[in-house]
């Protein structure tokens, strides 16, 4: 069966006719995503099949349940989404409906004492952050930018620039309410126990977090609709109102008050010749900081971050690259005296000792790198995240390589991945003119939880052209293949979609468990079928076959 007029009328009955539309003009706005090369190719292959048959906006968990029951009754696929930034939020098959959660935007609870918030799907990070900071709390911010759905980001993965202490978003998920593909509701963590409070993910109550994800990432609506989450909040000793000067995109924020202090640390080593020493020195710094258990933010910024985050315009970005404003990566550290001013003073002394020990140099306030990063982007990273600015370079970008492992291993991975990437560029001409100089030089080292583990990414910046995007994906594929040949843990990140079958055997056949779960809970493959089975590029015919149509 497919989406029918009767099904549409049933949806109207559930949410009211003003909250559902099958008008082609309305649905057109839910039909494409092209900031990712895979999105560009997906659009190219799927065409109008990416336009949903209708868009429906439920206002409650009960309405979501009923929508999913109707989907099962009439056998049409549905795609749940948050704010709709990423490519998994789009249909790949004609007759799919999109569930837009705009009417579910309440902060249901903000618990100062137990430091958590219970929120609905359309609560953005920026709204939650503003309210949390009034209570002396904060949430780490996504690189996708704080305009995105907090719930979707936490359920999916959530890589953050300020996660030295907090870890990624998924680790801050304390509980959730999920409407399964058949319409049944389950709750995880202490949220599952009425009256217990939504403060803890291990219980009382079942811990179902594993249900939401396979490898590193969640399944983006492939297992139903998350209608509520509880997320952890962290102590924040900065001002409730974000201190900003300047106008619009020429904004500066010098300080988060006397309880915060920023540092930019460099090693006098230039890329690409001394890339390895620079990265290894940075790793040493993070290990020492982890041992001392100091710091609120600690990260190594890749060149692409430095250039794209700090640029005011596209032209500015290219001028800065031309002038080699950031000759290498930099480490950025923030200390927060969240218990007392003495804590800040103590950590400051320790940091100075560590930097001296590892041979680092504190970037001076009057240096361009400090002015550009600390004044313009650092505080912004605490409150808002900002990586959608990465697209400024070419209006399209993709992660080029990524991995999770120990800091040392991550440095090794960056070096090896860059080597493969440079070889592709030099010997095969892949990515010529659009990969360098932002990519394949250094990388983003993002240590998590006091350096207990680490995340990295490098990026590629093709234009929104099919040929360039094809090349970008070929580069990513070859770099990833080399990671697996090195028995890298990158599989943990790539355990999604088509990579299931490729990398699952390397990960104890976990892909078979994921597929088994999907079959058990969604036998009709109705819940975001294009994503959970094939995320990148999928033809409507392939999908129809998978769904038994």
């Amino acid at each position, binding site marked *: 069966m497919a989406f029918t007029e009767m099904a549409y009328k049933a949806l109207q009955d559930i949410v009211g006719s003003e*909250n559902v*539309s099958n*008008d*082609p*003009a*309305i649905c*057109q*706005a*839910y*039909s*494409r995503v*092209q*900031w990712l090369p895979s999105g560009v190719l997906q659009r190219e292959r799927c065409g109008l099949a990416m*336009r949903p048959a209708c*868009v429906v*906006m439920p206002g409650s968990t009960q309405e979501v349940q009923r929508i999913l029951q109707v989907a099962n009754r009439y056998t049409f696929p549905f795609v749940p989404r948050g*704010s*709709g*930034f990423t490519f998994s939020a789009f249909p790949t098959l004609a007759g799919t409906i999109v569930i*837009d959660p*705009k009417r579910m935007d309440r*902060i249901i609870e903000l618990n100062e004492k137990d430091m958590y918030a219970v929120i609905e799907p359309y*609560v*953005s990070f*920026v*709204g939650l*952050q*503003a*309210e949390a900071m009034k209570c002396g709390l904060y949430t780490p911010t996504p690189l*996708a*930018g*704080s*305009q995105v759905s907090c719930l979707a980001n936490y359920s999916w993965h959530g890589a953050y620039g300020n996660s030295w202490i907090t870890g990624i978003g998924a680790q801050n998920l304390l509980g959730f309410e999920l409407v399964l593909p058949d319409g049944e509701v389950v709750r995880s963590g202490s949220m599952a126990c009425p009256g217990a409070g939504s403060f803890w993910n291990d219980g009382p109550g079942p811990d179902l977090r594993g249900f939401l994800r396979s490898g590193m990432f969640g399944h983006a609506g492939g297992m139903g609709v998350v209608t509520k989450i509880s997320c952890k909040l962290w102590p924040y000793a900065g001002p409730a109102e*974000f201190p*900003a000067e300047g*106008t*619009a*995109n*020429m*904004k500066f*924020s010098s300080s988060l008050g006397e309880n915060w202090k920023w540092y930019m640390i460099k090693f006098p080593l230039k890329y690409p010749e001394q890339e390895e020493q620079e990265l290894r020195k940075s790793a040493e710094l993070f290990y020492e900081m982890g041992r001392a258990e100091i710091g609120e933010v600690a990260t190594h910024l890749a060149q692409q971050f430095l250039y794209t985050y700090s640029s005011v*315009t*596209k*032209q500015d970005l*290219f001028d800065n690259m031309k002038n080699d404003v950031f000759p290498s990566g930099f480490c950025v550290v923030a200390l927060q005296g969240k218990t007392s001013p003495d804590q800040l003073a103590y950590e400051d002394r320790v940091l100075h000792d560590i930097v001296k020990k590892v041979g680092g140099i504190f970037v001076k306030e009057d240096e361009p790198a400090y002015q550009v990063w600390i004044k313009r982007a650092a505080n*912004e990273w605490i*409150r*808002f995240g*900002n990586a*959608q*600015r990465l*697209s*400024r*370079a*070419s*209006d*399209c970008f993709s992660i080029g390589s990524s991995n999770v492992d120990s800091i040392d291993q991550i440095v090794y991975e960056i070096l090896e991945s860059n080597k493969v990437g440079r070889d592709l560029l030099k010997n095969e001409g892949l990515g010529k003119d*659009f990969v360098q100089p932002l990519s394949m030089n250094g990388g983003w080292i993002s240590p998590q939880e006091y350096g207990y583990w680490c995340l990295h990414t490098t990026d590629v910046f093709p*234009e*929104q052209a099919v040929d360039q995007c094809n090349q970008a994906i070929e580069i990513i594929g070859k770099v990833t293949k080399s990671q697996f040949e090195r028995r890298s843990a990158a599989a943990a990140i790539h355990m999604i979609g088509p990579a299931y079958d490729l990398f699952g055997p390397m990960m104890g056949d976990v892909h078979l468990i994921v597929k088994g779960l999907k079959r058990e809970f969604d036998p009709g493959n109705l819940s975001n079928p294009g994503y959970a089975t094939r995320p990148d590029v999928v033809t409507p015919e392939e999908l129809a076959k998978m769904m038994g149509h």
Partner: protein
Amino acid sequence: MALEKIEYDATHCQRCSTCKWSHLWEVKSHRFARNCPSVVYGKFDTYAAQGKNDIVTGLLKGELSWEDSKDRLLEIIYRCPVCAACDVSCKRVMDLDIIGVLDALREEACERGYGPLPAHKEFIQSIMNYDNVWKQPRNRRAGWAKKLDIKDLSKAGETADVLYYVGCTYAYKPGMETVPMHTAKILKAAGIDFGILGAKEICCGGIADNVGDKKSFEEIAKKNLDMFKATGAKTIVTNCPGCFMTFSEKYARLQKIDTEKLPYTVKHSTQFIAELLQAGKLTFTRPVDMTVTWHDPCHLGRRGEPYKHWEGKRVKFGLTEPPREMNRGVNGIYEAPREILKAIPGLRFVEMERIKEYAWCCGSGGGAKSAYPDFALATAKERIEEAEATGAGAIITSCPWCESNLSDGIDAGGSRLRVGDILDIAVQAL
């Protein structure tokens, strides 16, 4: 044709949703975090700038046609005040001409004969017939100036340093004539040599351009430009942000020149009066015992920025050749009205959460009030709620359209807030 001009901008939207939120640095609460009246009211993404980019992409790629959904397309295009909040937010991360996209959609609708909407046509027809948007006789235009002894610069031989251009709504709308009367009183108090065009003043034509009727706009603009030339006016002062933006930005765009290359300088009355205060030519002495908040009119702020003309093309990576300095809405008139309010003794001035280039629109602009009054009203009510949260007793602005729509919002919501024009307050302090 119109859409082709902005193809790159529309098709390269990364649909990150930044356009739907106030500048992230400036968000102060979950309640007042959003910036786009269209998508807040219409809810579907389609009503946001992101959705309009998708519509353009669909139309250009042949995936969507006007015939598929003409009425809904017109609603998507016109149920928007073109307030440019989306444009300001977007440019924080990208270099796309979002206002260009919204304008092009309207122009396209008109080129195809589908736009403007009947309510807009009424305004434009009124301008053609009566030289004003309110279907009023020309000889009543300067009725407010009777007995005020003001020079009429349309008469041969009359000259003045400043041409005071009143605008249709202040000239005709009952109850609003106090604004030009008070303006005149303040200008006189400061010793300014000024004059008006009397019954010869004609509509600026901004509304025609706003709704995409470029042909009518050109016709009206030409008449005004000729009139300005004839009077030899070098400085034009106006109260209406719509007229201000039209003379400053639209007339420059029409002539393909920068605003600063126009043969005249146009100043909004708040800008002019703030300069008089700064120069010591005007002083407020009487206390005004009120607590007020200020509503930034979009046409004075985000859209009041001087125009920078650019002709060129997108090249590799989307760079522009020659480099294009885009308008970002940050150089509009934001400080002048605040300086005036702060200069009034006894007046307590409090800010709302969304201000200046991040201000929430009243909902009236771009022809939205006339074509979609329910939308305009809902948008105004949101602003009133935000104003009430400040504890102010009055919301002050300097735009007849904002004032009127906010007033409707107050009535509809049963608010005890008052609405008023800044010059009605300022004149009390003389």
